[in-house]
């Protein structure tokens, strides 16, 4: 055990050195953008933090009724250099709260809603709605809740008791067949099921889809994501079900705070952000407010 410690330390050292090329790459990027006169808002990367450069965060309604975020008197921009705008007040307030909550340094890895807005505004991968839907539905073929283990018996039973109710729920809710499998190839999911989901997802707007796809990416499960978005599951339940095997192993071998809890809270935060983003961006959220006002 003691012999392992020095090698562990060495690993840490190597790892931090491996991050260095990333930093230099960022400098290059910055040079590149200044030479082509692209106005680029300075966001950090996933690990770096920036010093806080503003005091007051306010929102204002600009052209076309879109909401903007103001840091002191400057308008917030996206990493792509666009003006940062969101479609409704609730989302603007939630984003402003993220910026307001930063203390001495800006921790972008805690600002999930801002990140999602940036993705929707800049669309860095240049995808349209159909491409996002296809990417989201790909997860159905490898859906977490469809793959069952044959041993150990405790986990077999846990998967059956916890995952079957959600599968039953989604099959009834959307009138589709999904099923589960013990084979490594997974269940054969009928084309009609995919078509039903494809049509359903088509009714979402672009922003909501970005949020939903993010949730699916986090949970690695279309079934659990629909359970959450349709308000059948809470975030805590969905994340627990997505991490069922890990939770089983934790029960057996013990919990390690800096790995298990760390991952779980991150997954919860990301999933909650994606779901909230989808709710707040949906047209019905804006519609409902109008009905209540009239």
């Amino acid at each position, binding site marked *: 055990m003691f012999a392992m410690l020095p090698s562990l330390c060495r690993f840490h050292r190597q790892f931090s050195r491996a991050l260095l090329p990333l930093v230099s790459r960022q400098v290059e990027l910055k040079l590149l953008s200044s030479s082509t006169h692209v106005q680029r808002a300075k966001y950090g990367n996933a690990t770096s933090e920036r010093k806080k450069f503003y005091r007051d965060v306010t929102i204002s309604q600009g052209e076309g009724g879109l909401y903007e975020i103001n840091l002191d008197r400057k308008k917030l921009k996206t990493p792509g250099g666009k003006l940062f705008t969101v479609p409704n*007040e609730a989302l603007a307030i939630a984003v402003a709260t993220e910026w307001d*909550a930063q203390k001495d340094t800006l921790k972008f890895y805690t600002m999930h809603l801002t990140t999602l807005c940036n993705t929707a505004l800049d669309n860095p991968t240049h995808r349209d709605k159909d491409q996002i839907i296809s990417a989201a539905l790909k997860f159905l073929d490898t859906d977490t809740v469809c793959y069952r283990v044959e041993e150990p018996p405790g986990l077999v039973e846990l998967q059956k008791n916890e995952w079957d109710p959600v599968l039953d729920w989604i099959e009834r809710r959307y009138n589709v067949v999904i099923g589960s499998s013990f084979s490594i190839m997974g269940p054969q999911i009928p084309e009609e099921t995919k078509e039903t989901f494809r049509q359903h997802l088509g009714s979402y707007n672009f922003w909501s889809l970005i949020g939903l796809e993010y949730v699916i990416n986090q949970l690695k499960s279309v079934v659990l994501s629909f359970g959450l978005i349709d308000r059948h599951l809470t975030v805590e339940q969905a994340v627990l079900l997505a991490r069922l095997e890990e939770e089983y192993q934790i029960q057996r071998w013990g919990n390690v705070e800096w790995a298990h809890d760390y991952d779980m809270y991150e997954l919860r935060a990301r999933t909650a952000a994606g779901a909230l983003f989808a709710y707040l961006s949906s047209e019905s959220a804006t519609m409902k407010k109008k009905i209540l006002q009239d």
Partner: protein
Amino acid sequence: MAAACSLRVYRSVLKELRHLQGSEYTQSMAYTHLREQFRNNQVTGERHCRAQREALHTSQVYLCLLESTRLHLDLHQQYHARGERGPDEVARLVGLRLPTQPGGKGWEK
């Protein structure tokens, strides 16, 4: 039942806001917005039962976002934000302690 539950979620969200924004959190936009939402949903009658349930779920999701982000950041700062650790600290993390010799090891000055 639902009313008591939504009150609990509402208060927990305010607690998180207070943690983020300090004692002046009642002056923030988020506070005003949440209070308005909560009051609106409180007075809506049985007719809008579904809207009320949806609002409760959305606020639970928001609470989860604030809570998990805070807890994740705490763990991040405790374990991952300080760079390289010394051998004794690494040992302590896994519940071990480097051996010590009461009289020194003999080569210290």
